[in-house]
Every structure is written in C-alpha cells, then in structure tokens.
C-alpha cells in the first residue's frame, strides 16, 4: 500500500520534472547560486571569528589584519545579497511560470472535455483543482525544494566547517540535534487526532451556519432563533474545548525545540571552553568558539525546517497529482475534427434506432426513431426525467449515441465537423448562462460583429428591450459572473435575444420560457413563431399551451417515445398526451 503510494508520488514527481524542463537553466542557476550563497553565508562567521581572535585584549589587537578580514567580509556579504535576490527572482520565475503553464493546459483541456465529464464533476471541484491545487503545488514544491536544498547544503557546510574546527565538539552537536526532530515528530503525531477532532466539529458548525443563515428567512418566520442559538452554542462550546487543546499542544513544538537548541548551544560553550583551556587555545581559539556557537544554531535550524518541508513536499505532490488528473483525463478523439467546416444544412434530421444511456446500468433511450424534414416544428413533452433534454444533448453532440445514428441531411452527425454542426443550431436552455461583460456583449455572444441596431432589434423581438432600457446603464450595464442581479426570467430573455440575433438554420428551445410568466411567454411565442418559419425547430416544454402548433409532438416517458403525432391526432388517441393535456387544462372545479 505504502509502496504503491510512493510509486505514485514518484510518477507525479517525474511529471513535475517535465514542467521544470523549460526552466532548466533557471533551475541549474538557482542551485548553483544557492550553493555559493550558503557557502559564503557560512564563511562569514569564520571570518568574524578570525577577526575576534585578532582582538585579544588591551594593546593586543592587529588592526591591519582585521581590516583586510573585514574587507573580505564585505565582499562576501555583497555577493551573497545579490545571489539571494537572484535566487528569489529565479525561483519566482519558475514557480509562477509553471503554474501559469499548468493552468493554461488545464483550461485548454476543459474546452475539450466531453460534456459527460463536466456533468459529473461539480465546478467547485474543478476550480479548486486548477486554481488552489496548482498554486499550492508550485508554492510548496519550489519553496519546499529550495528550502530542502538550502537546508542540506547548510547542514553539510556547517558540518565540514565544524569538523575543521573541532571534531569532538562537532560530535556533540551531531548527537544531540536529532533530539529536537524526534520531539517535533512526537508532538505532531500526538496533536494530529486533536486537530482532526477540531476540524470535525468545525465542519459540523459550518454546516449549521450554512443551513441556518441561508434559511434565515424561514427561521425568522417560525421564530426559531432561540432554539437554533442554543444548538449553535452547544457546538461552539465543544469547538472551543477542542480548539484550545489542539492549538495549545501544537504550539509547544517551538518552545521545546528552542529549548533543545539552547541546550546544544550551552553544551558547545561548555566543551568548547574546556577544550580551549586544556589545549591552551591550540585546539580551539575564542574566535573559533564564537564561530562554532554561531554554527551550532545554523546547523539545528534546517533540521527543524526539514520536517516541515517534507510535509509540504508531500502535500505539494498530492496537489500536483490532483491537477494532473484533470490535465491527463483522456479525451475521446473525434474524427469529425478534420471534416470541412463550411456546410449548408437543409435541416432534414433523422433519428434511426437510437440507443443511449448516461450510465450503462440505467438504459434510458432504446431504439428511438423519428424523421423530421426541413422547416418542421418538433415538440417534445413528457414528465420530468423522461429524457427530453437527452435528445437535445445527442443532437448537439454533447453526448454521442451508444447505438444507431442521427443524421443531418443524410450524413451521420458524428461525421460532420462539430463546430459547423453546432453553429447551425441556435439553442436556448432552461439553465441560463451569461458571461461576464455588458448586456450588449451577452446578446452579441454568437455574433460579435453585430451592429447596435441589430442587437436592439433582437432584444425587442425577445421582449427584453423594455427591461434592459430600465437598467442603470442600459445595454452597457455590466453583468457579473452568472448574470448577477438579474432575475431568472430576465436572464432567460437575454438568452433568447442571443439566439434571435444569430438566427442559425435550426433551433433548439429547451424549456426556454420556463421562468417567464405566461403573459410574456405568449408574446415571445409570437416572436418564436416568426423565427421558426422555414427552420427546423425542436421545442422542449412542460406547458402544453406553447406547443400545440407543432408539426410533430413526441410524447416521451421513461426514455421512450410512446406517442407521436399532431396535437389533434394525439388528443383523439386519448392516451398519455390526452391525460397530460387535461390535467393542465381541465377546468379546476374539483374543489366544488
């Protein structure tokens, strides 16, 4: 199990290296600079120690030598400073560059995802993968990596320097230091369950907050504020206890490691001083001792950091794996991509023995047949979940049939260029979608070069003009993500304007007027009628009043077309359509 995990981590790491490849010069330079700057940083305390040794006491100071040492120190620190800045800049370049590339690739990938993938993965999840995970990955990885590298060089460097000064004292440092590592690991292990408890209670509380604040109006209507407050306070008290434990116990790490480092420091001072006396300053001088003391703190620091760095690296690799999952998600190849783009569709559409299901376990559409000729209006009706929208998904090739075929002017839609196919359909969906931008941008979405007159004419036809005019900035009103403050009905009117403007050869109206009141619906209906003149149209609706004029009505139930015909024919059959129609239009006199 653990081995498999490590293997995956390794695989991810190799993929990461691929992204690093374009930055290989940055990377190598960064490593070299780090090594040099660390070495110089370590060299400075030695120089300081040497200088101190030259200032032994009254009348015993060699100024000339000290001056030349100080000059060396100045050169060393200036070089180090420049290198440090360069390292930071190089690392930023790599980090931000890699995230930028990853985000770009991920976004491009999304454009190619089959709709089935998008339907089954909520947007929050994808956004968090492409944005936060990518960010955390690059931050963690490069920060972790540079710190790791820096730490190792520091440890090696100090070791070498310390060994050259005094092997026995070095031995003390090397033996005692790992103690702080063990303590840190021990505390982390013990506090893990406390943090887990804290986050569980916090989750419980957040979901209560979420539920009750979202439902505040209902809470207020029933005067339940007090009950909810006491429920909240009960969780809050538990959270308080758990948080205190977790925060306190985890915060003991720093003081304890600091204490252990202090002990190392004191030991070095003790043995250093004793050695200095016993050897008469031959084995170690005062200056050397002071450098040694400086080193002992530098040596222990990376150890404290490394345990953090390792968790960070692991976390970064886990984040990377999540981002790569998106980028590497296989996309079915599509032979139609190479098909010509310029088609002039007539609008004869045929569904032949179409079988389709979203999941293999739940067959949905079975052996569906219908033939629609140019300019006909096709209405699809039926109870919720009967597969009405599925037909539209297949027509637009958001999904492909499992068996059978759909043809446009006799050509299988799978062989027609997707771009060309979709361009020839105008679509209004129940679920409205508007992009960030002005009202004008949104209406001109499918025809960016439209003139103002055309845009206004389209808005008028969709009965959107009057409400747009009343907005503070009219057609230039900026809409936020997902339409902002517009009502659902207004959003639908904008989506209708969009199609009114681009006027393609065929139309799909999927519950296009579901959020619009019946009066406006009838007015738009007239505009639709004009628009549908000579265009093959598909209309999905639950209000039967809107579809009576259709040439073909398909009545669907449980994925199958159970009745087919015109309004009058279907009423005569006295079947399912008859029932549906009467349930909506029977005089509601049951109460009397």
């Amino acid at each position, binding site marked *: 199990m653990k081995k498999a995990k490590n293997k995956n981590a390794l695989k991810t790491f190799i993929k990461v290296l691929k992204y690093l490849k374009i930055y290989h010069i940055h990377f190598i330079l960064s490593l070299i600079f780090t090594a040099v700057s660390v070495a110089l940083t370590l060299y400075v305390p030695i120089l300081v120690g040497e200088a*101190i040794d030259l200032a032994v006491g009254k009348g015993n100071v060699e100024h000339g030598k000290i001056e030349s040492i100080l000059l060396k120190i100045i050169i060393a620190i200036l070089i180090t400073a420049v290198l440090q800045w360069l390292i930071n800049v190089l690392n*930023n370049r790599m980090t931000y560059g890699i995230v930028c590339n990853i985000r770009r690739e991920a976004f491009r990938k999304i454009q190619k995802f089959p709709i089935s993938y998008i339907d089954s993965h909520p947007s929050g999840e994808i956004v968090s993968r492409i944005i936060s995970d990518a960010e955390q990955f690059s931050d963690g990885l490069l920060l972790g990596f540079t710190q790791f590298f820096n730490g190792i060089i520091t440890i090696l460097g100090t070791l070498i320097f310390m060994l050259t000064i005094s092997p026995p004292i070095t031995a003390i440092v090397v033996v005692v230091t790992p103690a702080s590592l063990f303590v840190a690991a021990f505390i982390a292990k013990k506090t893990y369950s406390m943090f887990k408890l804290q986050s569980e209670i916090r989750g419980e509380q957040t979901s209560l907050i979420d539920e009750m604040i979202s439902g505040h109006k209902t809470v207020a209507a029933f005067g339940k504020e007090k009950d*909810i407050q006491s429920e*909240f306070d009960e969780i809050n008290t538990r959270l308080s206890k758990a948080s205190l434990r977790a925060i306190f116990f985890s915060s003991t790490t720093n003081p304890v490691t600091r204490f252990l480092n202090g002990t190392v420091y004191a030991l070095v001072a003790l043995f250093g001083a004793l050695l200095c006396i016993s050897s008469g300053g031959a084995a170690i001088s005062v200056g050397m001792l002071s450098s040694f003391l400086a080193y002992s703190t530098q040596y222990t620091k990376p150890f404290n950091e490394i345990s953090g760095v390792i968790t960070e690296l692991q976390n970064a690799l886990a984040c990377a794996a999540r981002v790569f999952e998106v980028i590497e998600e296989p996309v079915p190849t599509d032979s139609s991509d190479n098909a010509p783009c310029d088609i002039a569709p007539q609008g004869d559409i045929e569904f032949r023995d179409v079988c389709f299901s979203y999941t293999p376990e739940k067959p949905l559409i079975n052996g569906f047949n219908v033939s629609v000729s140019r300019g006909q209006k096709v209405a699809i009706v039926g109870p919720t979940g009967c597969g009405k929208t599925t037909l539209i998904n297949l027509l*637009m090739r958001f999904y492909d049939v499992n068996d059978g075929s759909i043809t446009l002017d006799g050509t299988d839609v799978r062989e027609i260029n997707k771009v060309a196919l979709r361009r020839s359909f105008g679509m209004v969906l129940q679920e409205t*979608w508007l992009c960030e931008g002005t009202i004008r941008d949104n209406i001109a979405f499918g025809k960016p070069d439209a003139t103002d007159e055309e845009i206004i004419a389209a808005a008028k036809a969709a009965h959107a003009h009057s409400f747009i005019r009343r907005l503070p900035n009219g057609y230039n009103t900026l809409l936020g993500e997902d339409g902002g403050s517009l*009502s659902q009905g207004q959003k639908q009117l904008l989506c209708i304007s969009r199609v009114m403007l681009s006027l393609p050869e065929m139309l799909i109206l999927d519950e296009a007027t579901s959020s619009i009141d019946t009066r406006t619906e009838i007015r738009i209906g007239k505009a639709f009628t004009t628009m549908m003149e000579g265009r093959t149209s598909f209309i999905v609706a639950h209000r039967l009043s809107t579809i009576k004029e259709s040439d073909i009505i398909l009545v669907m139930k449980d994925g199958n077309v159970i009745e087919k015909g015109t309004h009058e024919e279907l009423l005569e059959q006295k079947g399912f359509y008859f029932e549906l129609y009467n349930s909506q239009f029977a005089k509601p006199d049951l109460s009397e």
Partner: protein
Amino acid sequence: MKKLLKYLKGYRKESVIAPLFKMLEALFELMIPLAVSQIIDNGIGGGDTRRIYLMFAVMIILGIVGLSCSLCAQYFSAKAAVGFSTALRSSLFSHIQSFSYSRTDKLGTSTLITRMTSDINTVQTGVNLFLRLFMRSPFVVFGAMIMAFTINTRLALIFAVTIPLLAIVVFGIMLVSIPIYKKVQAKLDRVVAKTRGNYKGARVVRAFNKENDETQDFETRNNELTKIQLFAGKISALMNPLTYVIINLAVVLLIRNGAMTVDSGIISQGELVALYNYMSQILVELIKLASLIITLNKCSAGAKRISAVLDTPADTDFEVRTERSDDSLAVEFDNVSFAYSESGDPAISNISFKVKRGETVGIIGSTGCGKSTLVNMIPGFYHPTEGNVFINGKNTGLYSSDELRAKIGIVPQKALLFKGTVRSNILWGNENASEEELWDALRLAQADGFIREKAEGLDEPVKQNGSNFSGGQKQRLTIARALVRRPEILILDDSASALDYATESALRSALASLDYNPTKFIVSQRTSSIRHADLIIVLEDGDIVGVGTHEELLKACPTYLEIYNSQFSAGGESK
C-alpha cells in the same frame, strides 16, 4: 478592531499573563550572550574551569525557566484567543439571527457565512499570534540594544542606527507590497471567475463555438496574473538580501570599532562576542515582527468586516404612522408603499385593501411585480416605507415579532427544509403538536401519502436543504409545517408551483375546509389557483391594477383577462 476587544474581557487575566510570560522568556534569552561572554573572559581568559561549569548550569537553568514561561504563555494566549473567538462567534451568530429580511437581503447570505467562518478564524489566529509576539519581538529588539548599551555606549550607537534602518527596510517593503498583493488577489479572482464561468457554461460556449475566444481571454487573464505575481515577487525578494547586508555591515562596523575599543582596554574580547551575538538576535526578531504584522493586517481586515456586521442594526428604522384602525378586519393595507433601498424604485406603491376574518385573498401578477413583497409585509418581515399595515386593527409595527408571527403561518416561496427528521421539521410550526396533529397537518397538505410510504414515517431523516425530497414533496411538507400551527392567518407564497394540477386542487379543497377558518392569502401565477378567492388582487409593476372576484375582474381588468386567456383559451396566439 477596537470594538471587538470587549470579547477579550472575560480573558483579561490570560491576555496579560501570556505576553508577560513571553517577555520573561525573552529576558532569559537575552542573558545567554552575557553568560557566554563570562565563559570567554573569566573562564577561558582567567582559566577558571569552575566558572565555566557554573555558567553552563546557568544557561541550562535559563533554558528550563524560559521553556516553562513559554509554555505558560502559549497556554494562556491559546485560551484567550479561543475564548475570544468563541464569544465573538456566538454573539455574531445571535446578531445575524436577529436580522430583518431587509438586512439579510442587503448583506447577502454568502457574505454572512464567510464572516461567521473564515473571518472569525483569521481573527482568532491573529489574536493568538498578537498575544504571543507583540511584546516579545520589540522587547528582544530593544532589550538587545539596551544590553549593548550596558556593555559599551559608543558601540551600542551602532545598534541605535542599525535597528531603525532595518525597521525601515522591513516595514517599507511590506507596506509597498501589501497593495500589490491585493492586486494579485484581484487578478486571481478574475482567473477563477473565468474558469468557473466557462466550466458552468460549457454547453453554451460550445453551442456558440466560443472555445477559442474563451481560451484566449483566459490566457490574457492568466498572463496578467503571472506578470503581477512576478512583480510582487521581485519586491518581496529584496527583503532578505537587504536585511542581510545591513546586519552584516553593522557587524563589520562593530568589529572594526570594537577592535579599537578592545585595544584601548575599554571592553574585553568576551564582551565583543556578546555584542556580536545580540546583533544576530535582532534580525531574527525583526523578521518575526514583520510576519506578525502581515498576519495582523489580514486579521484587522477580517475584524473590520465582522465589526461592520455587528454594527448593522438588526432592523431598518420604521415609522408607525397610525396606531389603530378598524379591529373587525383581519388585515388592512392603507396606502402602503415599500422600497428595498432608499434610492431605489418602490417595489410596491400605494397599495390599499381590506380583508375580513376568514376570507381568502388571491394575489396574481407577472414575475417581479411585488407579490411576495406584499405578503411578506403581513408578518412584519418588511415594514412599509409609506402607509400602514394593520392586523386585527393594530399596526404591525406595534406587535412584538413573536406575537405577530405566532398568529401567522407562512409557506415561503422557496421550500426550505432543515436537517433533521420530517417530524422535527413539522414541529417548527408548533412545538407542542401531538402525533395526531402532525398527521392531520400532513393529510391537509397532501403529504401524508408519501410520508406513510417512507420506511421511518415521521422519523424519516431529512438531509440539509431537504435534498432527499423532490420539489413537490418539499412544498407539501412546508405547507404542513405552516398548518400544524393552526394560524389565524395563512400565507401561501406561490407554494404550490411544483404540484401537479390534481394535487393542487385537492390541496385547495382541503384548505377551504379548515375548521378554524383562517384568513388566507394565496400568491400564484395561475388563475386556476385563486379563482375561488373572495378577493383577487392583480398587481403589475408594484401597482394594483385590479381588485375583485374572478368574474368581476374578467369583465373589468384587462391584465387579468390577458393572464387568464394565456392559461385557458385554446391557444393565446391564435386569438
């Protein structure tokens, strides 16, 4: 930030002890270089081995005492910070609970949720860090300087110059980079918005073949983000090298001048080493201080946002213009107007009508014409900007909200159920309802059938937002919740929209037969739902365009006729 301090009140002891102990720890840390200098001067210099052992013991004892001080400080600061956030959270939640509808509308639920969760957590971290470090770091910095002065005044002047210089660099870089990081955040938000928008709208983007345009737009935003990130990075990257240079130049100066001072016998070699050690301590603490300030900056932004919510009064001011009216009427609207915001157009204007006890009132009109606003004024969720609303002859502004809401059973437009069981949800309407009364309410609401089919009946679990029930089922359960209260006034705000026609008409006849005969308000878009009402009010753009019975309105109100025809004539288009 200041306003929130009162939540620390119960933790006064902790908030004093924590920084105090932290300071003690720092004090002991500051003594270490002195001990080392003793070892060098008296131990090595004087060949006094006992002195070395003694100083070693002193250092270890200082370490142990420091450790215990530090642990105390960590405990008390954690206690104060957690206690603070617990009190703040509870009081913020309670304040939000007291908000009127207008307040909730204005502030927005997602904002309020963020205040309750992440903002409070940020403030808690800030308080904790503040208690631990705000005394310690300045204390170490100035302590080191003072110690330097006790050793040698002239050399200590180097400290007096270095510290402000370091402070200018550290805080200067921080001040410059904070606004840049805000810009980075704004650019990041744009990238997020594009990603989410594009993903959610994948069908439309593809239907219009806009993939390439969208990708281009994304890449522009992505590159802008990267550019500003690099810029911000370049500035923050200055911090380490600059402080490194300053501190080491100070060391160079220290040794140069120190060597001369040693030469003239004013200070010893060991004291020079001590000065050098103090210099290194300063840098570490200044960097800690800088990161503390960044955290505090975030924390104070969060605190400001929380204070703003706490400072928002629970309700908007409203005026009671006339106290009493005809008390034989159940509900009276007297020339009522209401606007959601002071500057905005009124949502409803000049509405007047009178309703006798037991009557049924239907309210109809297009989407956004003010129907919901009107009925939400009856339980006092919104107060009129002009005019008066009376219930039983008393102005709604004079009732306490509990008193008023006890009289009213409301079924909101959005059918919302809460996590728990069917029983716990229905009990919201009346805590003391018996088993029989619960089933009664369910039966009237046409919900008894599907509840009986559930394995656990009344105790069937309900998930958050009632997500394990269909829209129509949820609507019927919310109706039962209102009915179990046996209210004087029953309000159904378009709450049968997801029911099929047969269920709806069964519901209608059940409501007509209620034995306690409440006054009923029924909001609907369907004429069939309200045609039997004693009084129908037709609204358009916030104005009443017709009042009367179904038959009267068909004759006298063209809007009503148009609505009716759109639903009942054999095809509105062919007319």
